[in-house]
């Protein structure tokens, strides 16, 4: 894993992406890049196309136009399985955990793509399968410690409070050892304390593991604090792109947030 902020290597680049659903245009001709090791925020008013953008990046939505360059390879669209097995992991705006499974099992599913032993070994639960299970379990326990969720290890996630579920979902994404982590509003609906914890986790993941992060967030304080660069979408178009300070000073951004000049 990359341990340093190189700052200039581009990990992912989207070129002229346009996406529409029937008559509704969700994204219109948007291009930006994400550099290795940075925290990249995507902001914008409701319905601006932020979540759709993440869905394009990990292959859930297929754009009508444009292309995506990831790790130097350009393709017109990503496939979910390809994205997952090549280091893109994500969390969802509406938590998408496996409700019937425990915290531990949920996070273990994050390691599915790197586990290989076949079903016969598993049925015997012996030799290679046991060894594999133990190794991955150990890895997952590190994540559990890191996120401070030891106490809920065996709890079915459906019974956890909202803030905890968000944390488990982050754990599941981290379990895949992603190179690029996509977080869709990881702090939405949290109280101040929970938000602070989550901010700390995001920063730690970025610093300790060198994971590149793309993050959607509505809380401007958080965005300005933790992100290296910010891209702003409004009505599916990119209206600004730069450091937090540059973006904050941008008149279009101020207008978009105040709801003027949508002519």
């Amino acid at each position: 894993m990359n341990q340093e902020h190189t700052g200039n290597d581009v990990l992912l680049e989207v070129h002229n992406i346009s996406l529409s659903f029937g008559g509704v245009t969700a994204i219109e001709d948007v291009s930006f890049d994400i550099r290795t090791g940075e925290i990249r925020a995507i902001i914008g008013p409701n319905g601006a196309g932020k979540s759709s953008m993440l869905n394009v990046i990990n292959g859930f939505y297929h754009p009508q136009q444009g292309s995506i360059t990831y790790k130097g390879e350009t393709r017109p669209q990503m496939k979910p399985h390809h994205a997952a097995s090549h280091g893109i992991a994500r969390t969802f705006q509406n938590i998408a955990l496996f409700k019937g499974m425990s915290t531990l099992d949920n996070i273990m599913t994050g390691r599915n793509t790197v586990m290989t032993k076949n079903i016969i070994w598993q049925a015997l639960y012996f030799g290679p399968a046991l060894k594999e299970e133990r190794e991955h379990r150990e890895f997952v326990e590190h994540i559990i410690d890191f996120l401070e969720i030891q106490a809920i290890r065996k709890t079915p996630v459906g019974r956890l409070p909202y803030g905890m579920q968000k944390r488990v979902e982050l754990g599941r994404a981290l379990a895949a050892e992603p190179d690029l982590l996509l977080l869709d509003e990881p702090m939405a609906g949290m109280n101040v304390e929970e938000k602070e914890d989550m901010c700390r986790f995001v920063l730690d993941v970025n610093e300790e593991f060198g994971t590149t992060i793309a993050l959607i967030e509505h809380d401007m304080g958080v965005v300005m604090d933790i992100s290296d660069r910010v891209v702003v979408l409004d009505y599916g178009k990119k209206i600004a792109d730069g450091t937090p300070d540059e973006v904050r000073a941008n008149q279009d951004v101020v207008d978009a947030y105040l709801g003027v000049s949508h002519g």
Partner: protein
Amino acid sequence: MFYREAGQFKSSYNADQAILPIAQDRVFVIGVLAVAFAGVPWFIDSYWVNAIFLPFLAYALAALGLNLLTGYCGQVSLGTGGFMAVGAFATFKLITAFPELNLIIVVLLSGAVTAAVGVMFGLPSLRIKGFYLAVATLAAQFFLVWLFNKVGWFLNYSPTGQITMPSVEVFGVLVTGPRATPAARYLFCLSFVALFALAAKNIVRGRVGRSWMAIRDMDIAAELIGIRPLAAKLSAFAVSSFYIGMAGSLYFGVWLGSAEPIEAFGIEQSFLVLFMIIIGGLGSVLGSFLGAAFMTLMPIVLKNFMVDGLAVEVVTAKHVEITLMGVLIIFFLIVEPHGLARMWQILKEKLRLWPFPY
């Protein structure tokens, strides 16, 4: 009984990952196995084996199979009877074509044949879900039974339309046919069920089991984190059908001895096994056994109680049985979708804190 999880701390992941992390559970299961293998064979007679033990074991294996598919992977199937028929007919064809083949191999091969058929009928699950999938598997049920009934080759052109299991020895002991002893038939089935219950438990707590449950709980999220729906669903159909095929093989070969396709493998079988896992507990290995035990024992207990005890007419008793079953299904679907297994777990949690509930 002191039943406590508290205070048993695990110092290694190995210990924590053990199949039954709680000591009392381990003792309980070992006790049940000891009684089942070493105790029951001593007193078992042909009434007990035919009325209770063999149906219980065959249905437990079928319920386990269906539970892997429906309870763990979330794919509803009404084709259980048809898949049991595949297992039974595979056994019949194999044993009559190759009388020298070891019956253990025959049962395993019957499972494998059923797995292949199951995967074929599981293909629609990649496109359709829930109710529509249930209807597709229902079609499999009717098609398979119709096929076995219609095509003489499957029946070895038997004039009665029945298939009959020949007497077969395993390691010098007769396990099928009228001259096999109750204990031998029982132990043969029990060994399969015990072994494959263990295998099922192992599968569901590993990678494959987690990918099934992920598909069950939220298939889109599962796909986005890199679980292939195709592999997960089809492996669930394959493993499930493998179990159900072996169950059909034991059901016909060891329990019934002879069978007529429509009667033995009709849609009632599909529903019966489905009810077993609903009552026993969806997504629970233990639940499959509890459900099978419950559905095998309930009619017998009810009949003994009402007909012999209260002198109620047999027909009335049958009606009461069916009504009671309906009520129970509705109760479990609404109140406790995790069935008897979950009730058992709640009881354990209560006992864990007993006598101080705080």
